C-alpha cells in the first residue's frame, strides 16, 4: 500500500545496517523520504550510531541536520530558562510537553529531532496569571481574529498560540491534553502532580515516562493533520522503548490510560506502533487495553492510518493517502467536538478559507 521508498525508510530506521546495501541513488531517495517525513535527523542519528559510513553526498545532509537539531535543542533549553524566569514567581509547576520535554530532559527521543513549537502544561486556575506574565516577558497572542480567540478559549485545551516578539518562537500553553469539547476528558492534574522536577530549573517539570507516552499517542490520534504523523509514531516507539527500562512501566501505562480516560486511543496507538514499526509491546498490555476499551482495533482505522502515515512528498501525490488523511481529519474533529459545534466550526473555517487565498510563506530570493 505504501511506496517502496516509505517501506525502505522505515526498514532502515529499524535496522540501519540495511543502508549498507544502498547505491547512491538509493541514498538519494532515502534522504529525500526521511526529510519529507521530518525523520532525517533520526536517520542521521541511527546511521551514525550503527557506524555506517554514508556516501559523502548523503553524509553532508545528514550531518547538517544533526547539527540543526543540536542547535534547536540548545534554543529550546534557552527558551525554557526564559520561561522559568518569567513564571517562577507564580509558584506553580510548569510542565513541559513533547519536544521541549525531550530536549530539556535529554531524552533519547530528542536526539536528531527537529523542534517546532514549545508546549507547556500549567494548572488551569493559573492560566490568567501565566498569560499575563508571558505577555510581560514578550509573548503575544498570534491569533488575532475574535473567532480564533474564542475558539481556543472556550473549546480548546490550550491558549491561542503565543509568539515571542523578538525571536518568533511559538509557545502553546496547555491546561489539559485534549480539547474541552472532546469525547474524552483527561484530568491533567494527574500529569502535573506526578511530573518530576529538574535540578537547575525549580519551576519546570518533566512528565512521567508513561505520561509522555500517553500524551504522544493521544496527540497523534486526535490531531487531524498528519504532516508529522510518521515522525510522531517514531516518537511513540522511542518513548515506549525508553520507558520500558523501568520495571513497572507497562502497568503504569495501563493505569495512566485509565486515570486519564484515554484507554481506547492508547490501545489503538500502541497497536499502530506494533503494526507499523514492530514496537516491542507486551501483547497482554494491548489485549487488556482493548478489552477495557470494549473491542479490538478497528480494521478500517488501521487501514486508514497505514495509508495516511507516509512522507509528505508521497502523500501529496497519492490519492489514497489524500483520502485517508481526509477521513482522519474528519474523525479527529468528530472526536474533538460534538456534532453541532463541529458543523459550526467547519462552516466558519471554509468561509474564511474561501475569502482569502491559502497563504504561502514568502521566501527570500
Amino acid at each position, binding site marked *: 500500500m505504501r511506496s517502496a521508498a516509505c517501506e525502505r525508510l522505515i526498514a532502515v530506521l529499524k535496522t540501519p545496517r540495511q543502508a549498507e546495501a544502498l547505491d547512491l541513488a538509493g541514498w538519494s531517495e532515502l534522504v*529525500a523520504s526521511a526529510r*519529507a517525513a521530518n525523520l532525517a535527523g533520526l536517520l542521521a542519528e541511527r546511521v551514525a550510531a550503527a557506524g555506517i559510513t554514508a556516501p559523502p553526498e548523503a553524509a553532508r545532509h545528514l550531518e547538517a541536520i544533526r*547539527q540543526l537539531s543540536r542547535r534547536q535543542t540548545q534554543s529550546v533549553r534557552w527558551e525554557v530558562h526564559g520561561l522559568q524566569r518569567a513564571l517562577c514567581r507564580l509558584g506553580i509547576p510548569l510542565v513541559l510537553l513533547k519536544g521541549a520535554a525531550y530536549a530539556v530532559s535529554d531524552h533519547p527521543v530528542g536526539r536528531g529531532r527537529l523542534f517546532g513549537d514549545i508546549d507547556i502544561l500549567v494548572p488551569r486556575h493559573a492560566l490568567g496569571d501565566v498569560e499575563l506574565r508571558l505577555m510581560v516577558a514578550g509573548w503575544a497572542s498570534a491569533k488575532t481574529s475574535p473567532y480564533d480567540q474564542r475558539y481556543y478559549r472556550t473549546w480548546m485545551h490550550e491558549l491561542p498560540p503565543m509568539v515571542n516578539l523578538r525571536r518568533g518562537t511559538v509557545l502553546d500553553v496547555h491546561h489539559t491534553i485534549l480539547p474541552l469539547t472532546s469525547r474524552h476528558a483527561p484530568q491533567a492534574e494527574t500529569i502535573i502532580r506526578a511530573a518530576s522536577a529538574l535540578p537547575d530549573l525549580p519551576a519546570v517539570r518533566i512528565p512521567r515516562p508513561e505520561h509522555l507516552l500517553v500524551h504522544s499517542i493521544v496527540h497523534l490520534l486526535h490531531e487531524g493533520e498528519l504532516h508529522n504523523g510518521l515522525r510522531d509514531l517514531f516518537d511513540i516507539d522511542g518513548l515506549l522503548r525508553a520507558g520500558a527500562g523501568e520495571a513497572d512501566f507497562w502497568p503504569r501505562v495501563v493505569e495512566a490510560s485509565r486515570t486519564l480516560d484515554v484507554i481506547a486511543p492508547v490501545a489503538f496507538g500502541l497497536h499502530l506502533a506494533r503494526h507499523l514499526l514492530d514496537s516491542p509491546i507486551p501483547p497482554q498490555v494491548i489485549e487488556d487495553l482493548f478489552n477495557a476499551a470494549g473491542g479490538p482495533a478497528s480494521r478500517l482505522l488501521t487501514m486508514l492510518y497505514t495509508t495516511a502515515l507516509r512522507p509528505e512528498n508521497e502523500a501529496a501525490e497519492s490519492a489514497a493517502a489524500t483520502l485517508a488523511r481526509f477521513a482522519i481529519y474528519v474523525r479527529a474533529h468528530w472526536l474533538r467536538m460534538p456534532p453541532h459545534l463541529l458543523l459550526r466550526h467547519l462552516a466558519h473555517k471554509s468561509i474564511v478559507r474561501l475569502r482569502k487565498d491559502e497563504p*504561502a510563506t514568502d*521566501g527570500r*530570493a
Partner: protein
Amino acid sequence: MIDVTLYLAPVTVRLRAPFGAVRQHLEVFYPEALHPGAKARHFIDFDIRITHGAGWRRWVRPQARFLLDHTEPFLPLPASQAAPLFEWGLNWCLASRPLGYLVMHAAVVARDGDAIVMPGSPGAGKSTLCAALTFIDQWRLLSDELAILAPECGSLQPNPRPISLKNDSIDIVARFPGARLGQRYADTRKGTISHAAPPAASRAAAAQQARCRWVIFPRFAPGADPHCEEIGRAEAFARIAEQSFNRDRMGETGFHALCAMLDTARCFEIGYDSTDTALAMVRDITGR
C-alpha cells in the same frame, strides 16, 4: 517538458519544467545540462519543479510555481518569469537547506585561490562590481549572490551561475568585454532583470575552492566622493552576520566559521560613483 540533472558545484539539482523559457534559459546558461555526459552521480540535493499555475491560473494570467520536493516556498510568479524564478529559487535552496555550509549574501571572485567577498544589501552595486571584476579585470567568478563557506576547511565553494543584473546595471554590464546577456525580464518584483553568463574559465574551475583574503563592502552612489577605508574585523563580522542566511541556525559552528574566515582577511568599505573608480580601488586593496 524537460527533466534534467544539473551538476552545479557544490550541489546536484534535478529540474523538471514544462516551460519553453526555462529550456531556453538552460540552453544559454547551462548548455551541458541538456547533453548529459558520462558522469554517474545520482545523488539529488535539490529536486526542483517549476510547474504551471494551479487551476485556472494555468490559462488566465498564467503563473509559474516553484516546488522544492513537495514544498512550495514562494508565491507563484507570472509564467513569463519562470526562468528567473528558477534562479531565485535555487538561491533560496542553497541558503535554506542545511548542507553544512555557512551561506552569506555576498558576491565572491578569486584569483589564484585568493578570494574577495563582497557582502551587499540589495542596490549597493555588488553584482555590477562583481561583473566588472569578472569581465574587465579577469577575476574568476565564484558567485555573484552567495558566499558558501565550508566550516571544516574554511574555504569558499564556487557556485558559478548567471550573474543577476537589475535595471541600469544591465546596459552597463552589456558593454563589458566578453559579457553575454540573456533575455530581459521586465516588471519583475526587482524591476527589469537579466542574467550575464559566467566566463567559461570560471565554470571550468567550479571545483576549485578559494580562501577569503579580502572582505569589501561596496557602496555605489551617483555623484559620491570616492572613499576607501579599512574597517575592523569586529565591525565586518557584525555587518556580514546581518547578511548571513543561516549563521544562527548553524549555532557555534557558524560563529566559529565566520570568525575563522575573518581572521585571515582584511576588511574594507568602499564608496564610488563609477565602475572604473571601484576597479582602481580594488586593485589598490588587493595589489593585483
